[in-house]
């Protein structure tokens, strides 16, 4: 606020006449003045992890630009042609193939910069989905999804789902052996849907697989419908970020009622705008130097061929893994109707559950905390131990699926039996998340205790002194108030204490059951906790000297027990 007013005076002299005239022109017609006054000095907090969403945004722009280039030369048709005898590559001369595949070859060999654009497009797609996922993890682990940003989480989540569809449809377009087999697997998965599966397969392919419709259809979805939807959601997403203002990491001077950061003009514009060019530059360099999806090595789609060891793009690998993990015994015939749970569960139910967990998480957590306040200061992941543990447990499931998706590579690389690896992974998918949950939670709580210790006794300096009576102790450097604040400023939730389900006369009250579940969940979330140091505790620790016994963490919680194992600095 202050900066907006002080800079006004200097602006007047500095702005060159043509700029002033343009601003004036636009202001008189569309009220640009409101926008500049309201937005140009808006503050943006700065942190490397806030760049992740930007990478996704810029990769998307690169996708659109390189995609426009590709549409000029790609022919989305499944009509059969013979590849010209004089065209490159030599291995494909005279081979029968679809126009889609022929135009992809032509694009790669006979359009200057065509191969570059194909490779940039593919690398950008991988970067786009990757940065989006990591961005989402940042939002999750820092609690940035909390009120008032739950809706923007849902917007972002929808974009993630759409981007997977964008990748799937794009991967199908070149009509090589890999893309054809990808479509074939899609067909098999769609058919497993009870009752309507076979009809849905007809709907996708316009009849039997592969037909002649699917690539033109995928093309329209890929270049019009899906990017259009993503673009619309992106606009909404960014508008909400602007409108609600960015969150900030905890730190001195940062509160839920202010924003500390750099103004849009000039610093943020220079950094964020510059970052666009960096992302574009990196993707162009990747496209220039790293070949990807060299489709002429696989050849045109032929339903009898498959390349062993071929992997789908990384964001589809978890589905592949999920399909591999499922034992086949789970297909049943009931009254003559076939129910293929061996496909339905791994390809529809498992991703459905994973995605539902993601999409619904903010609302679940809010139902448990019953928190009504607005949150603009982020959590340090350690201070939200249960959430962090749930997140890592989720990731461990995802990780097991990824490894399963590459189990053949693991087997050949380490000389192990494929079947043995798969059996182990079948167990791990259930055991690992539980282990990871417990371990993560412990780690978070001990990090919190470490914070307490540092606040009470300062940083270790490595300098050892001897007291008059011959004992040794290490000198600790006390924290300054800014450093300390990061470790003591957070809020600690306690389990909800709701009225019991039944009143004194044993009569159930309405809503008692839901409250019971909520109480139990909230105990699960917040039973183990470590309280931040209070001024009184710090004063007590200091009056005893920094090499004294630490006061135990506040009473009552099982965290106090855990804290008993904490080392002290005698």
């Amino acid at each position, binding site marked *: *606020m202050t900066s907006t007013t002080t800079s006004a005076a200097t602006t007047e002299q500095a702005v060159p006449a043509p700029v002033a005239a343009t601003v004036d022109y636009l202001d008189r017609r569309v009220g640009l003045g409101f926008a500049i006054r309201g937005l140009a000095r808006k*503050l943006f907090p700065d942190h490397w992890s806030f760049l992740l969403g930007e990478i996704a945004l810029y990769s998307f722009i690169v996708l659109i630009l390189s995609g426009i280039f590709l549409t000029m030369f790609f022919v989305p048709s499944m009509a059969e042609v013979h590849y010209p005898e*004089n065209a*490159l590559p030599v291995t494909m001369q005279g081979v029968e193939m679809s126009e889609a595949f022929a135009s992809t070859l032509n694009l790669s*060999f*006979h359009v*200057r*910069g065509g*191969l*570059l654009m194909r490779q940039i497009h593919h690398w950008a797609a991988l970067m786009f989905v990757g940065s989006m996922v990591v961005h989402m993890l940042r939002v999750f682990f820092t609690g940035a999804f909390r009120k008032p940003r739950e809706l923007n989480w849902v917007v972002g989540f929808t974009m993630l789902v759409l981007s997977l569809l964008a990748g799937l449809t794009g991967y199908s377009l070149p009509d090589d052996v890999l893309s054809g*087999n990808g479509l*074939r*697997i899609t067909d*098999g998965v769609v058919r497993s849907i*009870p009752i309507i*599966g076979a*009809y849905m397969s*007809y*709907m*996708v392919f316009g*009849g*039997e697989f592969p037909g002649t419709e699917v690539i033109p259809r995928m093309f329209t979805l890929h270049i019009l419908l899906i990017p259009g939807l993503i673009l619309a959601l992106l606009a909404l997403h960014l508008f909400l970020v602007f409108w609600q203002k960015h969150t900030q990491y905890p730190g*001195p001077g940062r509160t*839920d009622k*202010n924003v*500390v950061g*750099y*103004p849009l003009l000039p610093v943020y514009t*220079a950094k964020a705008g*510059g970052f666009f*060019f*960096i992302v*574009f*530059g990196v993707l162009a360099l990747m*496209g*220039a130097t790293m070949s990807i999806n060299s489709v002429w090595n696989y050849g045109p789609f032929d*339903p*009898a061929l*498959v390349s*062993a*060891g071929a992997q789908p793009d990384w964001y589809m690998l978890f589905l*592949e893994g999920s*399909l591999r*993990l499922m*034992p*086949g015994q789970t297909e049943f015939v009931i009254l003559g*109707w076939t129910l293929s749970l*061996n*496909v339905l569960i791994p*390809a529809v139910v498992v991703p459905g559950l994973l995605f539902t967990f993601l999409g619904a998480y903010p609302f679940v957590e809010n139902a448990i905390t*019953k*928190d*009504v306040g607005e949150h603009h200061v982020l959590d340090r992941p350690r201070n939200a131990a249960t959430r962090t543990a749930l997140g890592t447990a989720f990731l461990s499931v995802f990780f097991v699926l990824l490894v399963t998706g590459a189990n053949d590579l693991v087997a050949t690389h380490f000389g192990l039996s494929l079947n043995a690896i*798969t059996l182990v992974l079948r167990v791990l998918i259930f055991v690992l998340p539980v282990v990871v949950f417990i371990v993560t939670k412990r780690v978070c709580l001990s990090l919190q205790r470490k914070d307490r210790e540092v606040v009470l006794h300062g940083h270790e300096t490595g300098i050892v002194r001897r007291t008059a009576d011959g004992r040794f102790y290490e000198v600790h450097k006390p924290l300054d108030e*800014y450093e*300390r604040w990061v470790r003591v400023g957070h809020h600690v*939730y306690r389990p*909800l204490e709701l009225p019991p389900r039944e009143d004194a006369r044993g009569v159930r009250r309405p809503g008692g059951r839901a409250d019971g579940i909520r109480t139990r969940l909230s105990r699960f979330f917040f039973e183990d906790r470590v309280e931040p140091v209070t*001024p009184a505790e710090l004063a*007590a620790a200091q009056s005893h000297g920094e090499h004294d016994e630490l006061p135990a963490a506040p009473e009552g919680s099982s965290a106090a027990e855990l804290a008993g194992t904490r080392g002290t600095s005698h």
Partner: protein
Amino acid sequence: MSIEKSSHSGEHRELGGSAGLPERFENPGLEPHRHRLADSDPKRAKRSERQIALIFTISILASIAGVVGYAVFPVDIDRASVLNVRWSTLVVGLGLGIGMLGIGVAAVQWARALMDDGEKIEDRHPMSAGPAAHQQSLEILRQGADEANIARRPVLKGAIAGALALAPLPFLVPLIGNLGADWDISKFKRTAWAPREDGSGDPERFFEGTYRYLARDPQDTKIRAADVTNGNIVHVIPHGLPEEEHYLEEKAKAVVLLVRVDPSILKEAPERADWSYDGIVAYSKICTHVGCPVALYEQQTHHVLCPCHQSTFDITDAAKVVFGPAKRALPQLPIKVDPEGYLYAAADFDEPVGPSYWQRER
């Protein structure tokens, strides 16, 4: 200015309770700003400026080099070479990449080294427009509903809901109705191996005009039983299929694996005793999991493996599943030989090939 956190049910407990100390620490406010060396040293600032200008210059040169690379390495049909394609991709790409990267690095460096780096504070306001505005908006909505007289015209309410629900149908029904072409899913059950019961088949492709010959994929040559050697796998299509209509759709269902094993290790159900010929068996190549071609044959174990999700089938035991996510055995194609020793299909598969679906057994 302590942080006021959200309300929640647990109350704060008195901790420590020493007189005069607050219950919690207070937010100390922003740390004092540390100035960069360049802020006080004009020479350093000048150096940063020169450095940034240099990076911009590199970007300019790279962009020019990229365009030159476009001109220097032709890839049109009569002048193309794989080398030209490679160089063109590399030089144009490096030009584009370094051109972009240069702008980005220079801009970020400019922001970091030369722009005002003091963090600023701005107030946030609650997202809500406030209770008064809330009241007003409800009032406005009520007034709108009043003026439209919705409450007193229940018939209209029902009518508009019905009209809105039905109006999309003339759009959606043709859209979805056309997508599935003829919706005739019984085609899943028939393959190109089906005999021409009327004997109308081309004698080159059909034995006695009725039964389809087996042929090698992709050469499309007929297969003599004597040429199928022990332990080798032959990839098979119906003879003459490549010239027919719907070639890919038919091929996607009809591809077959042909293997000869020692007849003594072949376990055959009595009703399938005449489906094989002298140890030669033919199975669908389409995986019963989700439909990849089952392409890998292990000679020692007589297993075939699907590379997609590793379902493994035992050729000597009716192609039953021995491992992996598939449930059903690969469908078997009954084969016979004609008087000249060529293999032909005595009948179509007796079940749909490939992935399962709800109506599969109906």
